[in-house]
């Protein structure tokens, strides 16, 4: 079921890899196309999201909606998906964030219902 949600995300242009994990960094499902080690990828993403949430709540700014990392070779977007899970997506550098973000929000809602 999760695989279907990720496969749908993969159909959006410029989405290169995606994964669902628990908030504490355990892999649940990944669509990585052999890009790397999914276990390690989600462990690091979970740490990033968790660290970002701690940093902003420390200053009473609430929980961030997402973490976006931009590099010359790609963009990485990580967002919570219900209280237990998170979704992370890696795109090509020229990807338009608008569509990807809209689809990711839809996906996180579906994932939240599945878990």
């Amino acid at each position, binding site marked *: 079921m*999760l695989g279907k949600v990720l496969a749908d995300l993969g159909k959006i242009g410029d989405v290169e890899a995606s994964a669902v994990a*628990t*908030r*504490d*960094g*355990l892999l*649940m*499902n990944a669509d990585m196309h052999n890009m790397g*080690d999914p*276990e*390690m990828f989600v*462990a*690091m993403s*979970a*740490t*990033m999201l*968790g*660290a970002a949430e*701690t940093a902003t709540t420390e200053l009473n700014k609430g929980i961030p909606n997402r973490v976006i990392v931009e590099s010359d070779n790609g963009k990485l977007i990580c967002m919570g998906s219900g209280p*237990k899970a998170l979704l992370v997506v890696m795109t090509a550098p020229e990807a338009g964030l608008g569509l990807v973000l809209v689809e990711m929000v839809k996906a996180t809602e579906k994932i939240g219902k599945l*878990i």
Partner: protein
Amino acid sequence: MIATGIPKLDDYLHGGVPIGETLVYYAHPGVEGAVFGMQSLFHALSTGISGVYVASSTEPRRIREQLGEFGWDVDAYGDRFAIIDAFSGLIGADSHERYVVADPGDVRSLTQCIHNAMEDLREPGVLVFESLSTIMDLCGESETLDAIEEWNQYAMLYDHVMIYNFTAWPYSDDTLLSIKENICDSTVSVGGIVGDVIFGQYFGVLKANWTDVVRKYILFKVLKPGGVRAYIPKILVTGPFDAGKSTFVHALSTRAVSVDRFGTTIALDHGHVDHKGFAADIFGTPGQERFDPIIKLLSGEAMGVFLVLDSTRSEDFARGKQMLEITRSFGLPVVIVANKQDCDGALTPENIRDKLDMPENILIMPAVATTGEGVFEAFETLIDMVTGV
């Protein structure tokens, strides 16, 4: 006894399957069940036992390829390995195997081949069935059940061991129950976890006539090459600042990464361990107090914990104990690693126990993470505690 070669399973079965007895891997649809039989076959061959594989749903050539993908070169064992080809007859292909079933749709034709193979096979040998389910689909449920009883009797008479792979497709309830509980001397269930937070596969013994059943399920992963590995998705490595946690993770792991700046871990260490049939993912936490929120975040769902201590710094022991609290490790299997035993002034594990005021049942093991000394001993100890026998 013929060992199954599946990690931990032989411990649960008290060494394996006794000569003349039978085992069925009862797999739920959708999990990787077929590899269990293949691994048992190869393990038998590699320990000097003869083995026959009953191919019923795949071409023999393709079976050799599949075994090769796991790194199991069965043809190296020459005469000790044979295939009963119950597939080629179905598609009208030629077969060069030692035993060829003329009409795979007729179970008597298969029984004849099995009988011949058992006579030829030097005892004790092992017969592994690729898929009982496909035989059942071709020959009929009740016919196959009757035949299994006959084969099992042959196994007893000829001092061989039978190992069946079976996938629990929606057959009649009687058939499923019969395979699960009656027809074989032992049943190992292979299933998948769905709907829970961890998505994974597990196996466990449902029945074994020769020993008490250990009611314990083991998560597993299938590696290529390698085969079935008992899998522990999360082992936590925690401890005070500069105790050697990252060094410990790297000493254990076949590959690992660390997020560190200025020599200290700021996010986490992550490593894969592949050791003696066990695969585990290791999460190392930072040690400094300002990172405590991250430690809390990462420590959920751990199945076991290493607390790494610098044996020369007794002033940090209280912090170590506090970290067990932060990670909510009480109740989980914990091994305390008394690291830096090679340094001057290192306390012995017993001294550390006194200073920590730890009860006798918590193990404290000496180690030198920089040289790898004691690291795998600690790992094996924790694995034993996690998987329990």
